[in-house]
């Protein structure tokens, strides 16, 4: 078992910098998820850990050993790919035993290890089939089996569930979670799906444009996002952002208001959040609720989506901007209906002033 330490890792392709200095500490046995929008460098980072990409600068340690120049096969890692990467001409048994075949292991050893992996993944009945006879979920199971047989210290998953349909994704997600518990190995998992990140991770690393935005436990990221990007990226529907002016600041709270937001006291613990006269206010759709009187924001309903377990209301406020409200119950709202919204001020987030483009990026990234 091993910990993984990335120190000021950089990656450039010619003049293009993809990873611009990343420091991450992954403890032994931890399940770490890299999330971020496409092009943020999360897969590149994983491939650098795997040894499939060269490291331009910085040091990578696995189990206390610097592995920058050690070939992939000797890094004690195993990788599961998005496209499964199982060999189409081999049976499941041969695929799972591939690493042992390469290492010229004895027949008995192969039999034993394949049987063990098959038992862990409950795929004993699939061993003599060919990949073409398997479903997507079963193929990914084979790929995971091949990884288990290697007895790696670190498992790497590169968007393993992206090619599966929604129902299978849920099943496999649970399986991978169980696998982590039973093997206790360090796992690094790349995804763009925040549900996978939130449910599986001990620790999430949010990446954007080659930089780490925030590292933390899932609920830390949800409740205390360090910046606007993380706030917008984590949580669905995405956090609402609006510009506000700062009236006065006392300790860790600031009184804020704008044309559409009635004055209230918002927590302002974030660095740079309430230094100037302006700030960006963020409120999660789930934290807003309709009130009869004393609402802080008001507007008209333009659309309401009833999902049974929740109702998502699209509200157009006086200055023409849109705000999403998510109610945890079924409720009927007609388009055109006036609505007044309140929220627990403790749940409001105050950020340094952000441009519309930044707000938009943060909200779109989550989709």
């Amino acid at each position, binding site marked *: 078992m091993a910990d993984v330490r990335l120190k000021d890792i950089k990656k450039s392709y010619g003049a293009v910098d993809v990873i611009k200095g990343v420091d991450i500490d992954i403890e032994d046995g931890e399940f770490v998820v890299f999330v971020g929008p496409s092009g943020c460098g999360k897969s590149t980072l994983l491939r650098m850990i795997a*040894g*499939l990409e060269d490291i331009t600068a910085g040091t990578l340690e696995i189990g206390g050993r610097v592995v920058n120049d050690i070939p992939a096969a000797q890094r004690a890692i195993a990788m599961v790919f998005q496209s499964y990467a199982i060999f189409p001409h081999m049976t499941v048994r041969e695929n799972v035993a591939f690493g042992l075949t390469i290492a010229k292991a004895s027949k008995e050893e192969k039999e034993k290890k394949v049987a063990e992996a098959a038992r862990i993944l409950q795929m004993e009945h699939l061993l003599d089939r060919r990949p073409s006879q398997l479903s997507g979920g079963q193929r990914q199971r084979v790929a995971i089996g091949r990884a288990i047989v290697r007895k790696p210290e670190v498992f790497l998953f590169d968007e393993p569930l992206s090619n599966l349909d929604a129902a299978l994704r849920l099943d496999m997600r649970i399986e991978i979670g169980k696998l982590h518990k039973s093997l206790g190995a360090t796992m690094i998992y790349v995804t763009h799906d925040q549900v996978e990140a939130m449910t599986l991770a001990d620790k999430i690393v949010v990446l954007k444009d080659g930089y780490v935005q925030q590292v933390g436990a899932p609920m830390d990221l949800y409740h205390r996002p360090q910046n606007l990007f993380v706030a917008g990226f984590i949580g669905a529907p995405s956090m609402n952002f609006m510009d506000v002016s700062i009236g006065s600041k006392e300790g860790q709270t600031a009184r804020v208001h704008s044309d559409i937001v009635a004055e209230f006291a918002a927590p302002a613990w974030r660095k740079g959040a309430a230094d100037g006269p302006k700030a960006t206010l963020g409120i999660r759709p789930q934290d807003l609720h309709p009130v009869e009187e004393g609402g802080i924001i008001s507007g008209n309903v333009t659309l309401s989506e009833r999902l049974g377990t929740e109702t998502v209301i699209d509200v157009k406020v006086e200055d023409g901007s849109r705000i999403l409200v998510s109610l945890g119950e079924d409720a009927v709202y007609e388009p055109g209906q006036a609505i007044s919204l309140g929220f627990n001020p403790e749940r409001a987030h105050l950020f340094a002033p952000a441009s519309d483009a930044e707000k938009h990026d943060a909200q779109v990234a989550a989709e």
Partner: protein
Amino acid sequence: MASKLTQSNRAGWLFAAPGVALMTLFIILPFFLAFAFSLTNQRLASPNPTEYVGFENYSDLLGLAIFTLEPERDEGGEVLRDDDGEIEYPRLRNFTRNNPDYPNLQGKREWFSWQSGENRTVILASDVVFMKALINTFTFVLFVAPIQAGFALCLALLINQKLRGINIFRTVFFMPVVVSIVVVSLLWQFIYSPGDGLLNNVLSGLTFGLWEPRDWLGNTATALPSIMAMSIWQGVGFHMVIWLSGLQTISPTLYEAAEIEGSNKWQTFRYVTWPGLRNTAVLILIVITMQAFALFAQIDVMTSGGPLDSTQVLVFQAVERGYGKQDISGGSTISVILFVIVLIISLIQRYLTRER
């Protein structure tokens, strides 16, 4: 039942018509005509009417007989020997010319023979030149198909790398394919020319003058191998490109997975590349085999089947008979035989390389 093929797609059929018409006229019709002609005594130009002759053309080409000659003996039963001590045999023509006791040998000639004890066993063929052409064609295919395919695969593996200027190599290797085979044949005639040809000169230079110049195309031992070498060189680029396309269909993640598992170069080839090339290999083997059976231009330009029929091949024989000797039925018969051979071999190859 009206199928989709015949419904509301007149435009489609109109578009297909010119191609279908040309293919019918120049491929399908001649194909069936060849079958028909091979059963007649049709000549290119003849005042006599064409007659149906059944399978006579086939027996004239394929007829074989085995015959054992017994030595001449004197009254005491002793084997007669000539002045050099060689055993004397009766003349073969006594049996093959108008001998009512041996109707099966009528008109046949000696193809080859071997000694067995005092007797001599002779294989007779109705058409010795055709038999030589048949053997030469098979020899050509047997050598060219694996060597050309293997060589092309090596080149494809070499140029399937991300290196600066790799396209120059691709172009160079592919160039002979674009050049007309007639031009290539003429050039190689210079290369092979006796005395001061390029090949003799190079070999002489490499051996510091020890090399005895030889007549590559004029020697029965070297003529066919020379044509094989040149044909392999000419066609290798084409098959390299097909291999290359096969190589590029193999998913890069499979290579990455193999790399992580610690697979070395040879293991990667054995477990990832080669299985991934299975369908390409079938295609290439069939294409090369068919091309090799169709060998003609090189022979026509470089040797015309000589010396001593050592480079006779089937297509050359078909053309030679059909147009040189104006024997259309004979040429057609050879074409039909060639078709059957290629068909059988393709079926065998398909069977051997089938998906299991």
